[in-house]
């Protein structure tokens, strides 16, 4: 707001929370890890995203909980403790952007920043009944955001409506000289996209995203959503994406490999946890890292170290990169015939806190419908589309071609004009 009381900037006075991996100058940023919490890391610079939001008038007023270094699907690996789901506090809020989703859902902020490497914006958005945009890789800048897997990480937002998400992305999207992987492709006018009808357009339902064992209420809600599009004049088309079943295995080679490399910077020299009286440098590294990292971070570092070690690189990392090509081709072929794809976000609504503790693989399978989008670089939008008989939110996912976030906003807004799922509030 300017001195005359006018809201002159696109997001003047809008309060938001940043997931605890976005650097803001002088604001403690810990990745919810004991490695950085020990000596609260005070970043000496701003992430491009928070800088752009500040320039647009938005006000950052805190940090949101996340799984440690964003590694998890339930926000249970945070060193600060688990985030509870506002719809049922015995259940998780999802993850890793669970703090962001719970805060938006509980009206603690107007929007929150998140990161999405394999579903970390969309799955918590679905569990907490928010709108969450996972952008195409390269659409937003990763500068100043703590990395997990650099070839998959994306920066996005959780919001109350598609319209809000479009206004926020308009501010944060676009090329950044400080992140060489951001695309020079022009950013569309997302507000204009909201006004376009979906009549005559094609929505694909990938059969591999409606699998045996998934919650029938989730399937029903998403199929009902397809009917809404039909009623608006869109055509529903069945499509097949045969490599979907290999996405999780591919993802859990590529992610830990990149994690093992990215986490090597946390050695207690430039920032973070420290120990006294080390025998030598190696002793120092080992003690700092062993005391600072939690179990899920250690697991991923070790899987990655193994997959990248001499003699195993071709069998794991190289192989996964090739299967990644096939997963990506599935999407490219699908988008030759349809405008967007529609699927569930997750196979079930929010699960109970502790349900997957002690079974890391089960937790990894949470990403089954979301990680293929990251592997392929496409964009995805999670929006509320119903509730289970236990009054737990159910989310649907719209998937669009690379850099076609405008299409997702067009389809998402059209749905929210016809339904009121996104307007419901948890009875806190």
């Amino acid at each position, binding site marked *: 707001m300017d001195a005359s009381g006018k809201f002159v900037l696109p997001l003047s006075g809008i309060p938001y929370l940043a997931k605890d991996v976005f650097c803001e100058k002088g604001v403690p940023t810990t990745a919810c890890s004991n490695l950085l919490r*020990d000596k609260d890391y005070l970043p000496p610079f701003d992430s491009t995203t928070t800088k752009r939001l500040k320039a647009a008038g938005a006000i950052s007023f805190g940090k949101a909980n996340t799984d440690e270094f964003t590694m998890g699907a339930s926000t249970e690996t945070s060193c600060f403790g688990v985030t509870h789901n506002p719809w049922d506090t015995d259940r998780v809020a999802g993850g890793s952007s669970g703090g962001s989703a719970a805060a938006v859902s509980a009206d603690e902020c107007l929007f929150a920043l998140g990161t999405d490497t394999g579903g970390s914006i969309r799955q918590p958005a679905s569990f907490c009944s928010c709108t969450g945009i996972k952008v195409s890789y390269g659409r937003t800048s990763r500068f100043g955001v703590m990395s997990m897997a650099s070839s998959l990480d994306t920066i996005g937002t959780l919001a109350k409506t598609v319209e809000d998400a479009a206004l926020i992305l308009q501010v944060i999207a676009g090329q950044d000289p400080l992140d060489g992987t951001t695309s020079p492709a022009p950013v569309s006018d997302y507000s204009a996209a909201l006004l376009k009808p979906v009549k005559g357009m094609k929505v694909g339902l990938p059969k591999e995203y409606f699998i045996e064992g998934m919650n029938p209420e989730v399937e029903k809600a998403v199929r009902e959503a397809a009917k809404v599009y039909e009623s608006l004049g869109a055509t529903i088309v069945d499509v097949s994406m045969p490599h979907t079943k290999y996405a999780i295995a591919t993802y859990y080679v590529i992610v830990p490999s990149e994690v093992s490399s990215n986490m090597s910077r946390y050695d207690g020299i430039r920032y973070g946890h420290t120990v006294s009286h080390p025998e030598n440098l190696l002793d120092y590294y080992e003690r700092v890292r062993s005391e600072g990292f939690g179990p899920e971070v250690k697991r991923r570092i*070790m899987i990655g170290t*193994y997959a990248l070690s001499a003699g195993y690189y071709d069998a794991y990392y190289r192989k996964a990169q090739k299967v990644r090509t096939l997963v990506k081709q599935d999407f490219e072929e699908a988008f030759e015939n349809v405008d967007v794809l529609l699927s569930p976000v997750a196979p079930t609504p929010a699960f109970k806190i502790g349900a997957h503790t002690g079974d890391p693989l089960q937790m990894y399978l949470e990403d089954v419908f979301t990680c293929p989008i990251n592997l392929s670089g496409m964009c995805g939008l999670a929006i509320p589309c119903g509730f289970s008989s236990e009054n737990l939110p159910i989310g649907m996912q719209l998937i669009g071609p690379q850099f076609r976030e405008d299409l997702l906003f067009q389809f998402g807004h059209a749905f929210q004009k016809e339904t009121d799922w996104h307007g419901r509030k948890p009875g806190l």
Partner: protein
Amino acid sequence: MVTLDPAAVRHIGKLARLRLTDEEVEKFAPELTSILQYIDKLSEVNTENVAPTSQLTGLENVFRSDVLRGEDTSSDELLQTSPLPIIDHQIASPPAHG
């Protein structure tokens, strides 16, 4: 089928600069084994003549001029985040050969 025994886990820990306790080694050995066995599923896929995907944007050789920007922060501010002593604008790390 790949199996990681406790000795292998300890070795990987060493390569990763993680000092694992006996309890951690016992816990991680079956967990990492089950993850790697799940990953083995990739061997079902025929990837002959498939090029690997290492990046998604199609951008190649993104260069910028190597000039100091100096507008976001300063070297002294960056040094302040270190938990170790700072001597003459340098971090005093433990000795490499102690």
